[in-house]
């Protein structure tokens, strides 16, 4: 009897939570294509708000994309060697260093951004360009590239493969590019989707580092929420959701694939 009540309670809490998470998203997406939200859906559906947002804010979309791709390139370029270094470092050091790399994620982005402005803000060439935002994004996303790659490296027993290559006479860089990198590609892929998703959605650091000429998508969103009609803000949110949804789906697929591979490897190891 009591267990039944408990079960009902669990169902209730889960259902309410799901409603809480989904209802506002659906409402906002609907509001973005409604003629007049104050009247409701009766006023008819329209794409004019989406058009208006695109006319006003298309450049924020492209800048976000550019920053996300550059961020990806840099996190791959410095994150892959870092993951390899963490794999080879003595475990105590590796744990410490990994924690240090996590610091920009764990501590508030606002504080990081303030520090960057107070230290580097006086270099106006840097301050006015989008590279300033890129710095913040790389700081924030680097651990999300390093961790999946490191996890894959640990799962596939990379040292054994490397020793095999070394015994065949391959030099260090040759081993790195022809053995290490290709074998970690799944981790790199999972990390890449995570990095792009996070970079596209980053706000706390970006808001402090942006200038009127370097607005990213979330900055534009904040701008439209503060100064535009509810429908325009909603249409903009709709564009944002449409942009990150495919990324999330790919990320999900990647993670599933990695998990399956990990269990397969574990089984092989047992056999």
């Amino acid at each position, binding site marked *: 009897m009591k267990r039944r009540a408990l079960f009902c309670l669990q169902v209730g809490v889960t259902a309410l*939570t*799901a409603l809480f998470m989904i209802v*506002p998203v659906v409402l906002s997406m609907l509001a973005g294509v409604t003629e007049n939200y104050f009247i409701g859906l009766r006023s008819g559906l329209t794409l004019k708000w989406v058009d208006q947002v695109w006319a006003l804010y298309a450049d924020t979309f492209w800048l976000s994309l550019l920053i996300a791709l550059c961020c990806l390139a840099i996190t791959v370029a410095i994150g892959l060697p870092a993951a390899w270094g963490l794999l080879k470092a003595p475990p105590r050091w590796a744990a410490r260093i990994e924690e240090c790399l996590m610091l920009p994620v764990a501590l508030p*982005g606002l504080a990081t951004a303030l520090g960057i402005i107070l*230290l580097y803000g006086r270099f106006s060439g840097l301050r006015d360009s989008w590279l300033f935002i890129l710095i913040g994004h*790389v700081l924030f996303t680097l651990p999300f590239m390093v961790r999946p790659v490191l996890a894959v490296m640990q799962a596939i027993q990379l040292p054994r493969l490397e020793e095999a290559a070394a015994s065949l006479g391959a030099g260090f860089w040759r081993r790195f590019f022809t053995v290490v990198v290709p074998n970690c590609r799944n981790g790199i892929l999972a990390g890449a989707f995570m990095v792009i998703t996070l970079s596209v959605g*980053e706000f706390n650091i970006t808001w402090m580092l942006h200038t009127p000429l370097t607005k990213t998508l*979330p900055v534009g969103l*904040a701008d439209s*929420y503060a100064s535009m009609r509810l429908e325009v803000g909603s249409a903009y949110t709709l564009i944002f959701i449409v942009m990150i949804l495919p990324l999330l789906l790919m990320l999900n697929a990647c993670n599933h694939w990695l998990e399956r591979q990990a269990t397969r490897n574990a089984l092989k190891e047992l056999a």
Partner: protein
Amino acid sequence: MSLLETRGRAPTALRRRAHHGARWPWMLLPALLFLAAFWLLPFARLLQIGLSPDRTTQQSGYWTVVSQPQYLQSLLNTLLLSLAVTLITLLIAAVVGCFLARQRFAGRGTLLALLTFPLAFPGVVVGFLVVMLAGRQGVLAQLSMSLFHERWTLAYSLSGLFIGYLYFSLPRAIVTLVAASEKLDRSLEEAARSLGASQWRITWDVIVPGLKPALLSSGALCFATSMGAFGTAFTLGTSLSVLPLTIYGEFTNYANFATAAALSVVMGAVAWLGLMLARALTHAGGEQPS
């Protein structure tokens, strides 16, 4: 002869193996240099600027933070809000996590995906969603209008912030807790039940200790993000007295760099202390014989 040969070869093999891993500091160098230049140095600069005198009080930034009631109030608000959000998030996520980990039903995967998909929303979007939910034209306002003929708006106050932070934290906590609940050993619960333990005791003595590491880690993360959640607060109203907004106001409206830097350091330190406390508690639990 063969003995000599192996003896001669062994050191080179060893040397070569050591050589393989010997490059690790060099490979880590680019990432660490980047971190040092763009995170450590800026933070050191914050620490240092916090020492310089404030524009109005002429005292150092840190002293101003400690001595002026409005800053202490802001700190206290943020702290209490973050703690409340953390507790409620863990409670809801634990219930949902246990439920989703144990029940198999059609649409379970979709439900889990829907619950975790808002994970990618930045704080500004979450703030806007709170406006859709509890703002002047929100669902809550319309419902209360038709039921009680008064308009309920929670969005532009601390309760709106609470709803927003909850929305932001729930997906992350649910992901962690579903994974942790799936690993729980159910035979322990059956054993407790067969020994006559009530459902309440089973929950408290078997399930909660089993979930403890996951609860602590996601709780610490939730607390740290709530301490510094700028985007949500920024969308909901810039007059609210919480740390991120106070810092932003001091920096942009009053150009009060010393106090803004000191407050940022305090905010970072509190978030960091939360993470350290959670880790200490996890390790304390791990050393006990299980």
